[in-house]
């Protein structure tokens, strides 16, 4: 396995900060906007964005929920893999809200399609936007494009992009894993 660091240290912090300021540009004080992290790894990202937004807007209450898409996946019974789900924690109504969906890596777009399906069980949002830390561009299988992007990377199918977080893995870092000989 070959590892290449795409994002870490200061650059990582600046990227998150930049994304938050972009959000504020479009959503002002977040009175009608909620953050929804896609379980499991998008929820870490959403926690970080919420933390950063709260630092920039200290007197605002930023609402954040976690959405699990396991039961809405389109590869159920077509692929061996994890069947056990994570929890949903959305303790507010999303009816009429602006929803910002967050995930760490956007690859084929299928997760986002499932997330849109799963989201509708909680009501009809006024608008849904997509925020991703890493966009693996040119690899979409479904017409889904992000509204806010931390970093765009070019990668091939056999490669893996892995995001680790200070809170869970001890370090903020994005790495690209490839087989040798590539």
């Amino acid at each position, binding site marked *: 396995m070959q590892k290449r660091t795409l994002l870490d240290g200061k650059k990582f912090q600046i990227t998150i900060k930049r994304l938050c300021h972009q959000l504020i540009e479009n959503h002002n004080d977040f009175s009608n906007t909620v953050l929804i992290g896609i379980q499991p790894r998008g929820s870490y990202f959403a926690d970080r964005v919420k933390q950063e937004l709260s630092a920039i807007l200290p007197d605002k209450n930023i609402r954040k929920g976690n959405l699990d898409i396991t*039961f809405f996946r389109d590869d*159920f019974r077509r692929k061996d893999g*994890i*069947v056990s*789900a*994570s*929890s949903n924690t959305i303790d507010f109504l999303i009816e009429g809200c602006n929803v910002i969906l967050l995930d760490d890596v956007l690859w084929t777009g299928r997760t986002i399609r499932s997330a849109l399906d799963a989201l509708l*069980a909680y*009501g009809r949002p006024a608008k849904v936007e997509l925020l991703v830390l890493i966009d693996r561009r040119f690899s979409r299988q479904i017409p889904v494009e992000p509204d806010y992007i931390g970093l765009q990377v070019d990668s091939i199918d056999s490669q893996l992009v892995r995001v680790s977080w200070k809170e869970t893995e001890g370090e903020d870092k994005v790495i690209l894993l490839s087989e040798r000989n590539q």
Partner: protein
Amino acid sequence: MAADKLSTRHLLGIKDINLNDIELIFETADNFKDVINRPIKRVPSLRDITIANIFFENSTRTKLSFELAEKRLSADVINFAASSSSVSKGETLIDTVNNILSMKVDMVVMRHPYAGAGVFLSKHINAQIVNAGDGAHEHPTQALLDAYSIRQKLGEVRGKKVVIVGDILHSRVAISNILCLQKLGAEVMVCGPATLIPKHIASLGVKVEHDLITALNWCDVANMLRIQLERQDIKYFPSLREYAMMYGLNKKILDNLNKEIIVMHPGPINRGVEITSDVADSKQSIILEQVENGVAVRMAVLYLLASQRD
């Protein structure tokens, strides 16, 4: 966290599954409980699956619960009741089921009056089988939902003391419950008149008690079973009235115990026989929670079985 796959292709009985399977089912049921409390109570997971509910014996709760679970998972459902079918014209079990299967059914949920019907079927047909009760043998989903309800109410099942009261001899719920609770690390006691306790039940590692008050003072949870008059070909006790006096649970007994216990009942209740109305409707009773949990647990079972590709 439990492993992410069941160890079995069918759910024929608690006997065939292990602790890991039970924990996986419970964890998945937690997620489905969340789903059925949402405004839109449906997920699309089983949209390409067809399930046949084949009931050779009457049922209200189990049948409705399975059907609701299937529909909330977006499966296609066909229902079949033996009383209104060609079974009464002399068709064999395999013929009936094979005919249903040639309509491209992926899963069969079956209740049958004979013990072992599910196992027999699983050896002869391709579909996945879920046993919804076979004679006096097993009723695995009931045991799972009972244990799940105890876990929900008391935090965990391990170390808890559960007494099963009533007609143990004719009860598939009792056998499945004993096996399930023991796998989860609970202590189990059975209580009832000697005629309704199977002779060698102690070999399963359960305590046997004939006095209701002693049993109730010992336990954390009392699971009150119905007297299955329809299966009793001879008289096992002098009269229902006498049974109710000796083994019926009323509010006075409940209030005089040395601790607060939880009362369960798999339904249907014969009010005034095994428990009185004031007990069934008391805050110590979790009978209606059992019914709600039944849907979530059955969704988990169907989902996990369906996730195993052939």
